[in-house]
């Protein structure tokens, strides 16, 4: 186990290093941020001064080493546009994205598992079939377009919910700004979170249904029924507990995907999170922020994958963590 963790961590460091090298070289090879950042009327001396101030006059490898030594000290560079720490900018936006992703996951679990269970227990009923057809739609619908249509219906036509932005925030534990504590904040949150959750609702429905479908045929369910247990107990305890392992895994892995997909949802609903920051930064070629965002999110992903693997072995004693050969 310990050996496994050490090997995985080392592998992660290698992946991160290669990623940083590729992304850095790539992002610094395209475009010229000076053209966007500086006033076009500026003369040659001002231009050169600005280039030197951003460190863009040095060769690429030297810029990379400056960056790398910064990374070791926990500094991912300074934003060209905002002139503040890139990491600080990202951390400032992180709570908004996390809140969105968490809420979406809660919605997905609360909708997906019961609906999937229903479809799995009565596969041939009308409700079951409707749920399954609906889940195909959940996979097929392009998220951003559904978001637009939600704005059209609930904001423009019905006027029930605000179309963009984040409501007022309050500090949770005096540290993290969250918006779900107030009614206005909730109203802002519900539409983007539902939009983000749709894909995962469909995924959880399918997963739960096939799990329940298989579990119902197992001997332990027949045995539980033969013991005369109530239906609720058979399903709630015997079936649910056995299908929960893959579901927990997928919930864990999908959390990372939610943060990545939040980029799209945040753009649709103008939600002030990390994803919106990335899109804005790509637009103005704010290189340090792009690189910092990608490094942060890749680190995040590696951590989630590792955590899920470890959790999995804890939940299912049959799983042993060993590196596959080769």
């Amino acid at each position, binding site marked *: 186990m310990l050996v496994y963790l050490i090997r995985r961590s080392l592998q992660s460091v290698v*992946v991160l290093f290669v990623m940083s090298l*590729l*992304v850095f070289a*790539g*992002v610094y*090879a*395209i*475009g010229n941020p000076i053209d966007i950042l500086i006033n076009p009327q500026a003369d040659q001396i001002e231009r050169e001064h600005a280039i030197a101030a951003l460190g863009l006059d040095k060769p690429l490898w030297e810029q990379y080493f400056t960056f790398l030594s910064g990374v070791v000290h926990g500094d991912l560079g300074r934003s060209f546009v905002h002139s503040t720490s890139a990491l600080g900018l990202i951390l400032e936006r992180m709570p908004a994205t996390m809140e969105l992703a968490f809420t979406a996951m809660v919605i997905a679990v609360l909708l997906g598992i019961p609906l999937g269970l229903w479809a799995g227990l009565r596969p041939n009923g009308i409700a079951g079939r409707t749920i399954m057809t609906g889940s*195909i*739609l959940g*996979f*097929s*619908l*392009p*998220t*951003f*377009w559904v978001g*637009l*249509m939600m*704005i*059209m219906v609930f*904001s*423009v036509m019905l006027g029930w919910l605000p*179309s963009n932005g984040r409501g007022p925030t309050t500090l949770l534990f005096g540290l993290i700004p969250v918006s779900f504590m107030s009614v206005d904040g909730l109203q802002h949150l519900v539409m983007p979170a539902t939009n983000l959750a749709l894909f995962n609702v469909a995924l959880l429905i399918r997963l739960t249904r096939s799990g329940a479908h298989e579990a119902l045929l197992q001997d332990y369910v027949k045995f539980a029924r033969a013991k005369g247990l109530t239906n609720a107990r058979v399903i709630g305890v015997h079936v649910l507990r056995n299908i929960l392992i893959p579901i927990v895994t997928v919930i864990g892995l999908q959390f*990372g*995907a939610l943060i*990545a*997909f939040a*980029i*799209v949802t945040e*753009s*649709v609903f103008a939600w002030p999170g990390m994803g919106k920051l*990335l*899109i804005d930064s*790509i*637009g103005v070629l704010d290189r340090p922020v*792009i690189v910092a965002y*990608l490094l942060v*999110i*890749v680190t995040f*992903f590696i951590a989630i*994958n590792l955590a899920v693997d470890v959790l999995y072995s804890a939940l299912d004693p049959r799983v042993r963590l060993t590196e596959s050969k*080769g």
Partner: protein
Amino acid sequence: MSARAVTPSVRAVETPFRRIVSDFCANPIAVCGLAMLAVILFLALFAPFLSPQNPYDLAQLDVMDSRLPPGSKTAAGGTFWLGTDDQGRDMWSAILYGLRISLSVGVIATVLALVIGLAAGLPAAYFGGRAEALVMRVVDIQLSFPAILIALILIAVLGQGTSKVIIALITVQWAYYARTVRSAALVEKRKEYVEAARCLALPPARIVFRHLLPNCLPPMIVVATVQVAAAITLEATLSFLGLGLPITEPSLGLLISNGYQYLLSGKYWISFFPGIALLLTIVSINLVADQLRDVLNPRLQR
């Protein structure tokens, strides 16, 4: 019953292709999907002949016609059935041309990714060893990140443009093919016909591409169909974010993005109809793929 009576005088020749066709037609929903897909392909292929106006010919556009609701009359006496956009462009024509661009980008990316995935996965499975371990490790690492993230990284690194979007889509997709073909080939290479080919001392390249490849194709076709839909969605998403195709090649995603700013003032049709076109395309492809998966799956054969 005598043997003679059993032998029918006219025997239908059952070829694998016919069997697949008849199996496919067993599901009416899938046939509907296929018909819908055929109509969409027809519309996209013949867009220049079917659309009332050329949406890129500025001479045909009239600013007076801009942002008209569906069903409005044109100055020339025609009707804008789906309304017009901010430049006075007929939405129906714009959608037909957009469909063309979205479909061609999706299909080109999928075909190229399929070729690359096959070229990486098949030899890896056949020869094994370090090359296989390396290819599969790269595939594993790549598949642990969501497609949208990888595509965004690539667009950030490569810059924007049609060819860059296609490169991004290929990079996202090849790993799926490499993994699928490897698992299929690992099963196939233990079969007798491969052994027979080896006994004939055929060169490995011939065994891999002439013997192994055709037998690994069925699962690849299924994955490729699903991936075309995924590629189209991903391209639309990138274009919506303003990171996809350039404004000179308006795909469906770009049309939707164009209408976004008018949505809040109640001019829904500029975003709504291209979205419906995108939706129908993706749903019909997914329906076909779903049935193909059942038809081509040897474990489910009746």
